[in-house]
C-alpha cells in the first residue's frame, strides 16, 4: 500500500463545522428513543447476536474489505472462497445456528461461493428428498463432504421453467436416468456456486418415460471428481464470466453428454418412478413447494426494507454532514446549508425513509400470515380433510388464505424489490459526486442487489399472477361466491358503494387513506375484468394494465400493513407517544407521496378529488417533510446497521466523512503504489517497475 502522507497533510482538518459536530446536533434535536425503536424493529435477541458476531468477525484479516473494489475478478473470487471457508470453520467451532450463520454472512456483505450450497442445495435435498435420499445426500451435504448447487435456469430459459431443455430419460432396462443437453440453449446457466466450487448439483430436467414428457423434475448429479475436483467425463462445466455485480459468486454453466445416474438420484418425496412397474407416480402435495416459494418471497419483502435502509442510512447521514451553498433567503453571514435541508433532497430521501419502514412492517405482516397459515394447514391435513392444497386458480373456502397469500406475495415481491433497488440508486445520486465513489458504499451494494428484481420470478412476469387472482376473485364476488378474505372484502365494498361514490377524507383520516387505496385497486380490477370478459380482449394485450393493477394492489397492501403496524397495541406498548406519532407521520408520508405520484389513477377511480390531490402535493407532503426532517438521523440510527457492514465513508456513524474518504484514497488505494510514464511517445507505462507484459 502507498506510504502514508506527509505530516503537513496529516495535520489538516476538514473546515468546520465538523461532520461529527453536525451529527451530534442532528441527534440532539430529536428525542426519538433509538434503542427502543431498534428493539421493536429487530428484537433484542437479534441485536445482541449482531454485536457478538461483529466482535468476532471484524478483527479477522481474512474478512478485510478494503480491497474489495480494487481487485480483479479472479482474485476476488479466490478471496471470497477464503472468506466462505473461514466462516464455515467458525460456524463449526462456535456451533452456530442457521440464523447465526446467516447473520454472519450479512455482516461479511458479499455473496460467497458456498452461498447456493448453504441455501438452495440443502433446502431442496431436505424438502424434496426421501429419508433414504436424506441419508445418501443430505447428511453428507450438511457436513460439507459434498458441495452442491441448484441448477434450474438455462441459457435459453429462465422464467419459463416448463420450457427447460435438459432431459432425463428413464432407462427401464438398467433402472437409470440419462441426463442430456440436446442443444446449446439447454446449457444450465447462472447457477450459483457451480462455476468453480460445487461437485454436485440438483439438476432440473424434463423427465421422459417411454417417450412421454412428464415435465421438469429434480435430479442429484455429481459433476466433479471428489479427489481432483476436475469435471467428470461428459460433463462440461465452468464459470459464466464477469457480471454487473455478484462477482464474488461463481455462477456457472453446465452441459451433459448422456450422463447416467441411478434411480435413487431423482428426488422422490413428491413424485417418483416405480422401479418395478416403470410407472410414474404423481406428486402428492404440490402446495408444499408452493408454500416455500411464498416464504421466500415474503422474506424478500422483509429484507427489502433492510436493503433500502442501508442506502438511506448512508445518504441521510452524509446529507446532514455535507453542506453546499448559502440559503438565498438567509442572512449573508450564515454558513452553507446542510444538503438535507434542501426540499429537493428531502423529497428524494424522506419518502424512501418512510418506504423502508413500510416494507419492513409489511414483510413482518406477511411472515405472520404465512405462519398462521402453516399451522392451519397442518390442522387441515388431519384425516377426513381434503388434503390437496390450493393453487391460485382455485378459491375454495379452506384454502383461500393460502391463495390470497400466494398472490399477494408475488405482487409484493415485485413492488418491494423494485422499490429497494431503485431506491438505492436514488440514494446514491442524492449523495452527488461522492456517491459515485466506491467508498460511498452504495454502488456495489446496489449492483449486488439488482438480481433480486429478476430472480424468484421476474418482477414484470409476477404481476400477471396477481392480476389473474384478482380477476378470479372479482368474478367470484360478482357471482355471489366471495371467499372470506381481505381481497374479496375490498371488491365487495367497492361494488356496494360504487353508485354512492367514495368521498374519503385522505387529508385528515388515516383509515380513509387505506380505504382510498383499496378503492383504487377495486376500481382497476373491475376495469380490467371489463376489458377481459365483456370486451374479450386478449391476455397479451392487457399485460400493461395487469402490471398497473398489480402495482396498485401491492401498494394498497403496503399501506394497509403499515397502518395496522403503527396502530397496533404492540407498537404503542414499545414506543413513547412522540416516537409513535412519528411512525404515523412516516405512514402518512409513504401513503400520500404514493398517492400523489399515482394521482391519475386515484382521480379517475373517484377515490379522491382534484382538490385533494393538489392539497396533498402542495401542503400535506411538504408539511410531513418538515415534521420528519429533524428526526431523520435518529430514524436511520434505529436500524442499527454497523459501520463495518455499511463499509461507507459517507455513512459513518461518527460523521467523519472527509477524513475517511481521504484516508482510503491515500492509504488503501493500490493505484497510488505505481508511478506512470504519461507521455504518448514512450511505450513504457511504469516508471517504478518494468512494464508488465500481461496486458
Amino acid at each position: 500500500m502507498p506510504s502514508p502522507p506527509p505530516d503537513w497533510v496529516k495535520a489538516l482538518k476538514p473546515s468546520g463545522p465538523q461532520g461529527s459536530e453536525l451529527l451530534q446536533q442532528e441527534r440532539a434535536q430529536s428525542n426519538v428513543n433509538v434503542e427502543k425503536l431498534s428493539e421493536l424493529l429487530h428484537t433484542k435477541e437479534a441485536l445482541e447476536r449482531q454485536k457478538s458476531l461483529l466482535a468476532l468477525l471484524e478483527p479477522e484479516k481474512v474478512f478485510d474489505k478494503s480491497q474489495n473494489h480494487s481487485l480483479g475478478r479472479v482474485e476476488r473470487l479466490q478471496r471470497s472462497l477464503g472468506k466462505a471457508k473461514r466462516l464455515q470453520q467458525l460456524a463449526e467451532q462456535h456451533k452456530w445456528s442457521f440464523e447465526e450463520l446467516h447473520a454472519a454472512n450479512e455482516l461479511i456483505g458479499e455473496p460467497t461461493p458456498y452461498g447456493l450450497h448453504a441455501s438452495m442445495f440443502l433446502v431442496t435435498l431436505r424438502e424434496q428428498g426421501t429419508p433414504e435420499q436424506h441419508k445418501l445426500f443430505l447428511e453428507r451435504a450438511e457436513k460439507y463432504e459434498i458441495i452442491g448447487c441448484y441448477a434450474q435456469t438455462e441459457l435459453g430459459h429462465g422464467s419459463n421453467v416448463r420450457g427447460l431443455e435438459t432431459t432425463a430419460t428413464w432407462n427401464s432396462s438398467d433402472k437409470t436416468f440419462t441426463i442430456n443437453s440436446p442443444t446449446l440453449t439447454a446449457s444450465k446457466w447462472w447457477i450459483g456456486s457451480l462455476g468453480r466450487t460445487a461437485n454436485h448439483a440438483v439438476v432440473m430436467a424434463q423427465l421422459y418415460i417411454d417417450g412421454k414428457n412428464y415435465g421438469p423434475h429434480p435430479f442429484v448429479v455429481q459433476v466433479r471428481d471428489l479427489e481432483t475436483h476436475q469435471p467428470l467425463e461428459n460433463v462440461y462445466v465452468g464459470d459464466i464470466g464477469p457480471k454487473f455485480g455478484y462477482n464474488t459468486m461463481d455462477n456457472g454453466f453446465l452441459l451433459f453428454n448422456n450422463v447416467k445416474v441411478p434411480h435413487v438420484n431423482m428426488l422422490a418425496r413428491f413424485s417418483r418412478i416405480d422401479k418395478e412397474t416403470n410407472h410414474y407416480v404423481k406428486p402428492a402435495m404440490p402446495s408444499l413447494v408452493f408454500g416455500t416459494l411464498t416464504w421466500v418471497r415474503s422474506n424478500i419483502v422483509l429484507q427489502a426494507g433492510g436493503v433500502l435502509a442501508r442506502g438511506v442510512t448512508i445518504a441521510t447521514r452524509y446529507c446532514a454532514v455535507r453542506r453546499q451553498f448559502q440559503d438565498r433567503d438567509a442572512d449573508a453571514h450564515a454558513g452553507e446549508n446542510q444538503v438535507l435541508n434542501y426540499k429537493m433532497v428531502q423529497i428524494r430521501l424522506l419518502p424512501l425513509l418512510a418506504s423502508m419502514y413500510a416494507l419492513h412492517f409489511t414483510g413482518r405482516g406477511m411472515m405472520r400470515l404465512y405462519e398462521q397459515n402453516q399451522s392451519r394447514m397442518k390442522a387441515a391435513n388431519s384425516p377426513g380433510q381434503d388434503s390437496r392444497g390450493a393453487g391460485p386458480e382455485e378459491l375454495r373456502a379452506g384454502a383461500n388464505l393460502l391463495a390470497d397469500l400466494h398472490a399477494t406475495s408475488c405482487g409484493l415481491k415485485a413492488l418491494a424489490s423494485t422499490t429497494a433497488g431503485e431506491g438505492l440508486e436514488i440514494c446514491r445520486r442524492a449523495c452527488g459526486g461522492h456517491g459515485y465513489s466506491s467508498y460511498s458504499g452504495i454502488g456495489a451494494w446496489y449492483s449486488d442487489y439488482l438480481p433480486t428484481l429478476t430472480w424468484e420470478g421476474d418482477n414484470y412476469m409476477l404481476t400477471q399472477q396477481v392480476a389473474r387472482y384478482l380477476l378470479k376473485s372479482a368474478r367470484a364476488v360478482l357471482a355471489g361466491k366471495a371467499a372470506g378474505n381481505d381481497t374479496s372484502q375490498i371488491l365487495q365494498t367497492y361494488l356496494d358503494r360504487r353508485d354512492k361514490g367514495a368521498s374519503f377524507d385522505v387529508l385528515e383520516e388515516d383509515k380513509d387513506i387505506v380505504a382510498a387505496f383499496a378503492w383504487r385497486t377495486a376500481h382497476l380490477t373491475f376495469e380490467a375484468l371489463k376489458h377481459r370478459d365483456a370486451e374479450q380482449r386478449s391476455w397479451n394485450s392487457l399485460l400493461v394494465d395487469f402490471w398497473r393493477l398489480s402495482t396498485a394492489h401491492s401498494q394498497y397492501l403496503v399501506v394497509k400493513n403499515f397502518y395496522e403496524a403503527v396502530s397496533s397495541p404492540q407498537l404503542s406498548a414499545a414506543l413513547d407517544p412522540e416516537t409513535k406519532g412519528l411512525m404515523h407521520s412516516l405512514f402518512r408520508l409513504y401513503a400520500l407521496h404514493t398517492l400523489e405520484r399515482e394521482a391519475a389513477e386515484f382521480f379517475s377511480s373517484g377515490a379522491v378529488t382534484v382538490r385533494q390531490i393538489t392539497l396533498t402535493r402542495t401542503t400535506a407532503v411538504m408539511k410531513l417533510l418538515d415534521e420528519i426532517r429533524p428526526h431523520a438521523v435518529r430514524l436511520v440510527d434505529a436500524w442499527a446497521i454497523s459501520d463495518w457492514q455499511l463499509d461507507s465513508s459517507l455513512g459513518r456513524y461518527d460523521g467523519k466523512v472527509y477524513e475517511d474518504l481521504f484516508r482510503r484514497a491515500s492509504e488503501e488505494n493500490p493505484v497510488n503504489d505505481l508511478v506512470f510514464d504519461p507521455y504518448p511517445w514512450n511505450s513504457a507505462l511504469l516508471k517504478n517497475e518494468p512494464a508488465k507484459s500481461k496486458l
Partner: protein
Amino acid sequence: MSDHNIDWVDRLKPAAPDGATTITTERSRSNLDVDSLAQHLLGTDFLERQDRILAQIKLDPLFSKDRQANLGRPERYMLGLARSKRMRQMADRYNWSEEDYETAKYLVDDISPYQLHQTMFRQTLLEQTSPEQKKYWMDLHESWTIVGAYAQTELGHGSNVSGIELIARWDPKTKEFILHSPTLTASKWWNGSLGRTATHSIVAAQLLLPDVVDGKGETVYKSYGPHMFVTRVRDPETHKPLPGIVIGDIGPKYGYASMDNAYMLFNNFRIPHNAMLSRYSRVDPETGKYYKPENKAVLYGSMTHARKRITMAARLALARAVTVAVRYCSIRRQFHDKEARSPGGYETAVLDYPTVQIRLLPLLATSYALHYTGERMGQIYEATRSNVDGGDLSSLIDLHSLSSGLKSLVSELAANGIETCRRSMGGHGYGGGSGLVQLNADYLAKPTVEGDNWMITQQMARYLIKKVTLISCSTTNFVPSNRTESVLHEYYMTKSTDPKPLDIFSDDGNIVKAFERRAAYLSFEAHHAHHVQKRSWKSLLIQMHQLSHAQSEMILVHNFFDSLTADTTLPPATRNILWLNFRLFALCTTGKSTRDFARASAVLETQLDAIPDTIVNIMQEMRPHAVRLVDAWSIPDYLLDSALGRSDGRVYEDLFNRAHRLNPLNTLTFNPDYRTDELVKGSNDGGAILSKL
C-alpha cells in the same frame, strides 16, 4: 480447461429457431430504408469514417475488449493509459483528423486518462489565457511536452464553485502567488487525468490580495473569488509530485475505472505571476491592483462547452443500449402465448409482450428525440461562439440556462434508459455479455457531474421566471427576441381568454402547442409563487425542477416536430415511421404528467384518459420496424461488445463462447473443502492470497 469435452460441446446448436434466422425474419418484416435513415442521422462522412477507423483499430490486439471486465483497478487504469498512448501514436501514423481521433475514442470506448488534457485543460487555455500565455501554453500542449488536467472541484465543494477553499495569495515582495490548502476539505477531488497522469494542471483557487494592515501589523487579505491558474504539478523526470504538493488517485468508483480521478493538496506552493490565466481578469504585478472581468458570463464558457456535446453523446449512449435490448428481445423467446399460437409452435418473442414494449419502444423513440435537439444545440452553440468571439456575451447566458436544463433532463433520460434496457433483458442483462455493464457504470456519472442534475435546473427556472417578469411588466408592443419569449408572450396574451384545450390526436402540430402551453403555464405559476405569493426560493425548489423539465421536454418535442416537418430527404414510408416515434415520445411524456397538462388546459380531458390505449396502438404499429430502427444507428458490433446485441443475432453462441473460451477464471481449479485453507487445488497455497492483505 478440460479439453476432452470440447468435441461434443462444439457440436451443440441453439434450439430452433436460432437467433440468426429470427433476426433475418425481423428485418424482412419492415420496409424502413436503413441506409437513408443512417445517412439522415449520421451523415455519409460519419459512416465512412467509422468504417475506416474501425478497420485500423481492430488490427491492434491492445484494443481487444475480450477480457477487460476481469481486470482489477490498477490493471484497468494501465490498460486505459496504454490504449490512450497507442491512439495518440496512431493519430500520427495514419494522419488522423480531429474527427478521426474522436471516432477512435468513441469506438474504443474507454474513459481516457488523457481526456482532460484534450478537453477541459485545452479549452480553458484557449478561452482564458492572455495572448502571450496562449502562445506559450498551447505550444507545450500541442507538442505533448506536457500533459494537463483541470482541478476545480474539491472534497468539500462541487456544485458551489464560489465555496471552494484552496487559496492563491498574492505575495507582492516576490511577485508570486502562494497556493495553499488550509483544510482537508480544500483538497482538490474528482479531478480527471490528474491522479497518476498529468504533469500540469489548471487549478481553481480563491484569489486573495493584500487589503490593509491591521493593528498588529499583520496583512489582512481580501478575497476576489475563484480564479484559474496553471501550474506544473509533477517532476518532468521522475513524474513524482513536486515538493509541497500531494497528489494521488481517489480510488475505485462505480465506473470510470480507466480514469485516474485525483486528490491534490498544496502546502504554501509558490507559482509565478504569469500562472494566473488573465484574459479577462488580472493582477497588476507592480501595484497589486485587481482588474475585474467585464462580464461574469465568461466564466460559464468552458462548462457550457462541456455540455455542448452532452445531448449528442446521450443519444448514442441510449441508442446503444436500445440496440442491444431490441435485438435481444426480438430473439429471446419465453412462454407460449396460449391464445395465439405462434407459427412453428415456438414460444413468444419477448419483444411481442406489451410489458416489454412499454419499456423499450418509448426509449427507442427517445433516442430519436434527443438526436434532433442535439443537432439543434450544436448549431446554437456555434452561433453563440461567434457572438462571444465578436464581443457579445448576452446570448451566452441564454445558452447556459438552456444547456443546464437540457443537460439535466437528457442525462437523466439516457442514464435511466440504459438501466431500463438492461433490466428488460432479464437475467442475461445482468451478465457481462450484455455489453451494458460498463456503459451503465460509466454513464451513471453523468447525472451528478458537470452540474448536479437537481441543482442546475434552478438556472433554467430562474431564466424563465425572469422572462415572465419581463413580459408581464412590458408595454403592449413587446417584441419577443427568441422562441422562449414568444411562447411565454403568446400565453400571456391569451391566458385571460381561457384558451380551449387542444386536440392532440388529430394534429401533430397541436402536440407541440400543448407542450408550449404547459411550459408557459408552469412558468407563470412559478413566477406567481415566488414574486406574488413571496414564497421562498428554497421552498419552491421541487417546483422549479419540474418547471425546468417541462421546458426541456417542450424543446425536445418541438425540435423533433420541426425537423421531421422540414425533412425532404427521407423516403416517405421511412419518414412516416419516424412520425410514429415522434407521437410515441410525445404521448409517453404527456402521459407522465397528465395533471400538469390538464391544469394548463393544454389537452382535452378525454384524450388524456385515452393516452395509455393510444400508446399501446402506436407501439403495435412500430413493433415490426423496431430492429431496423435500431440498425439505422449503425453502431458496430465492436463498440456494442455485446453477445446479446450482435447484429447477426448469434446471441447464445456468443454468450457461450465468452463463458467457456474468454473467461480466465476457468483456467483455475479450486479446492472447495472448508477444512483446508488451500484455495487453488494442488497449489498448497494455504490461503497465500490472504497474506497479501
